[in-house]
């Protein structure tokens, strides 16, 4: 160990400074809490919360504990993030590829989209969708059905609910299909490596994923019916839809703005990734007789993905963190339910803010671990 006394000085100063600052803070916090008669502790989590939440994925009302309220908020945050990430990725990839289109109009259209949505604060976009655009929607009684079953009203989007018979058999069939596809994929790869033959994996997979669930309908006794939302009159002028699934306008505004905003950044990542693949690669691939689709799928995308994934991970993280803006339009996410209502009721500022921050930290870290794993998987395996 090459320990140097000289190096100790600066490190010691830094550590002492950090310790002093933290010590100062904790000392003050202790005195302040003593003065105000607050005791520190996480015991409140099991107490009855006695407040209600508008929209929750799990059963919840005022008689449940604060911990349950925390879970409600966390699940709502995760819901928004997952939907947002999926839409933003699809939209971002499309726009990113469109930006490289040789078609002048498509190219410009995508460029304007990116420049427009990227330069407006996300909070403003959320407010715009929630307070201006979605408020212009019709009242429930005036809403026209989209395809006869969807109702987009000022009170939210109503979609038909699925009513399954023997749902588990259907799920097993999907799982079976996925497992078969994975096996065929591995087999196809082996065949290609050993004999150079290509098996049309894509079409086989497509067939499997449709046919097996279909079989479960025909033989397995699975049946599906829809519950279409129906208009119901509460009072003379007050109508709601009953039945089906209702998505609150907060959720719609939030996912819409989050995905439109993040998609612009993902589009830029995709564009940079595809442009980052050397021109020679494309030309070489074309010159050995691959079709344009094959060039994109077999040569460009695998290389571009390596450039695309790390910045896209950052965008996923940003989206997850930005979902906390939900508090501004009263969508009951973690910040609103826990750091808002629960904090107001209990007054446990330090505990609640620290739990909230810790939760976001763990969410961020788990996403980055997941994406790092994927990134490592597709990275160049140097021999």
């Amino acid at each position: 160990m090459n320990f140097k006394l000289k190096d100790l000085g600066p490190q010691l100063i830094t550590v002492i400074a950090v310790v002093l600052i933290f010590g100062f803070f904790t000392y003050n916090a202790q005195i302040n809490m003593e003065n105000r008669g607050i005791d520190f502790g996480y015991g409140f989590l099991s107490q009855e919360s006695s407040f209600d939440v508008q929209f929750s994925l799990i059963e919840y009302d005022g008689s449940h504990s604060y911990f349950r309220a925390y879970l409600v908020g966390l699940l709502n945050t995760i819901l928004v993030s997952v939907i947002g990430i999926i839409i933003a990725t699809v939209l971002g990839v499309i726009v990113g590829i469109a930006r490289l289109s040789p078609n002048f109009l498509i190219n410009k259209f995508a460029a304007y989209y990116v420049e427009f949505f990227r330069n407006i604060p996300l909070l403003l976009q959320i407010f715009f969708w929630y307070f201006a655009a979605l408020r212009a929607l019709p009242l429930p009684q005036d809403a026209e059905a989209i395809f006869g079953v969807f109702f987009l009203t000022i009170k939210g989007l109503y979609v038909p609910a699925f009513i399954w018979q023997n749902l588990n058999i259907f799920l097993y069939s999907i799982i079976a299909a996925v497992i078969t596809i994975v096996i065929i994929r591995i087999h196809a790869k082996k065949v290609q490596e050993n004999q150079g033959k290509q098996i049309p994996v894509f079409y086989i997979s497509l067939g499997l994923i449709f046919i097996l669930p279909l079989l479960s309908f025909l033989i397995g006794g699975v049946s599906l019916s829809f519950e279409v939302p129906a208009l119901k009159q509460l009072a003379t002028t007050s109508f709601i839809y009953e039945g089906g699934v209702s998505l609150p306008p907060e959720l719609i505004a939030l996912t819409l703005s989050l995905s439109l905003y993040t998609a612009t950044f993902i589009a830029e990542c995709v564009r940079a990734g595809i442009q980052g693949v050397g021109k020679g690669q494309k030309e070489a691939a074309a010159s050995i007789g691959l079709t344009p689709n094959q060039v994109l799928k077999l040569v460009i995308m695998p290389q571009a993905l390596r450039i695309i994934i790390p910045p896209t991970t950052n965008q996923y993280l940003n989206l997850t963190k930005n979902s906390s803006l939900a508090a501004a339009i009263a969508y009951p996410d973690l910040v609103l339910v826990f750091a808002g209502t629960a904090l107001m009721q209990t007054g446990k500022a330090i505990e609640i803010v620290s739990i909230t921050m810790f939760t976001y930290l763990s969410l961020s870290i788990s996403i980055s671990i997941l994406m790092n794993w994927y990134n490592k998987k597709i990275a160049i395996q140097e021999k």
Partner: protein
Amino acid sequence: MMNKINFLKPDKSNLNTFLYLGSFLFFISIFDVFLNSFFKVNLIGFLPNFLSFIMPLILGFIGLYFIRIEYSGIKNLDKINKHINTNNYNAILSLLIIFTVIKSIPPILSWFLIDASFAGDSKDVCSGSGACWTYIKVWMRRFMYGMYPNAEQWRINLSFIALALLGSVGYFATERFKKYLTLYYVVIYPFIAFLFIFFFISGGPVFFDFSYGIIAAILSIIIGFFVPSKFKFYYFLIVPLALYILLKYFIFFEEYIELGKLEGLNWVETGAWGGLSLTFIISFFCLIFCFPIGMAFALGRRSSFPLIRYISIGFIEFWRGVPLITVLFMSAVMFPMFLPADFFIDKLVRCIIAISLFEAAYVAEVIRGGLQALPRGQYEAARSLGMGYWKMHIFVILPQALKLVIPGIANTFLALVKDTPLIFVVGLLEIVGMLNLAKTNPEWLGFAMEGYVFAAIIFWIICYAMSKYSYNLEQKYKTDR
């Protein structure tokens, strides 16, 4: 007919026939959509509903198919074919985009301008279907200055104009003064800006702490000339602060200093600041503070001292992992608990500290990217010239690394500007917050759309200008390796 079209292969031999027929069909399709959207005239209304809806697309598609003639020898035609008409798929997409644009122009135009109301100063003039810009006009002062008293708003204007003029000094500096520009922008200009905002926008009896600070600074600079250069770094790290504390708590007492107690302008509390001017103030200070802090942590993260490195990593990863809104929550409800009971920090200052620390973590990661991108040879060359750590970083490494990361830093600053509306969490209302307040005013209900569009335009202009400026900077400082 279909069969025939499939059989027809447009080529150069009967170029004119195809060209005239194709362009005719293409233009008639656009003309139909145009009439439909601008004058509500439907040329092909006699057809069944669905067919008349899709007809322009079919006509345009056939037209584009006819004019897709390779190597026609006509320059413009080749250009069109190359850009919007490479194959059937692209042709349909191009047509769809053209139609969407034509369709969306009239409603947007009529909402924005034709049906909009500009005149008057009450809600009554806004009866049309268009936008009510009167609303923006009436509330303009609130959107720009927040709750700042009307009679005092010239102070904000004056400060901003003065700061803008002082900020543009760089353009007029002659060759002789160019080398001092960095010093000016990094140290002097922020200090002047701070003085302006402190004395002018905030106003009130001038803070006496300042006089101690100024005396301490002047004294320590004068003594500083006699300190050997070897200790100068440590001297300036310790002595000014020590002098300040000494002056304030041991030598002078507050009642003796009348120097600072000038009754000048009326005091305006920070709670009344707001609107776009607050956006500027917050972005400006956060921008100034987050840069050096971020740079320090970037260097700390690459330090060879493990303890400093781990502290830096912890700091950076902590701030990067949490959303800004929770940081602001922390500054609002948790931070006062960490301070002595009689110690009060203004809401705005707490906000600026929180945003600066948050953005500093992002700046640190961007700068670290630049530091890592520099080839090892630069470090080794600097060391071999006998440079120490600070000399090496200040004169060799950082200038190059910062040049490399101009786009990244610009993006972080853009994110900072776009994050400022979040300060509504602590009850400060900049422009978006003011909009939400104005929206709930019972006399002006129902104009949310106008307000958000107005704010969106302002933010868009600011952010777009910043990104273009950063692009110019990037081009200017680009050095080939």
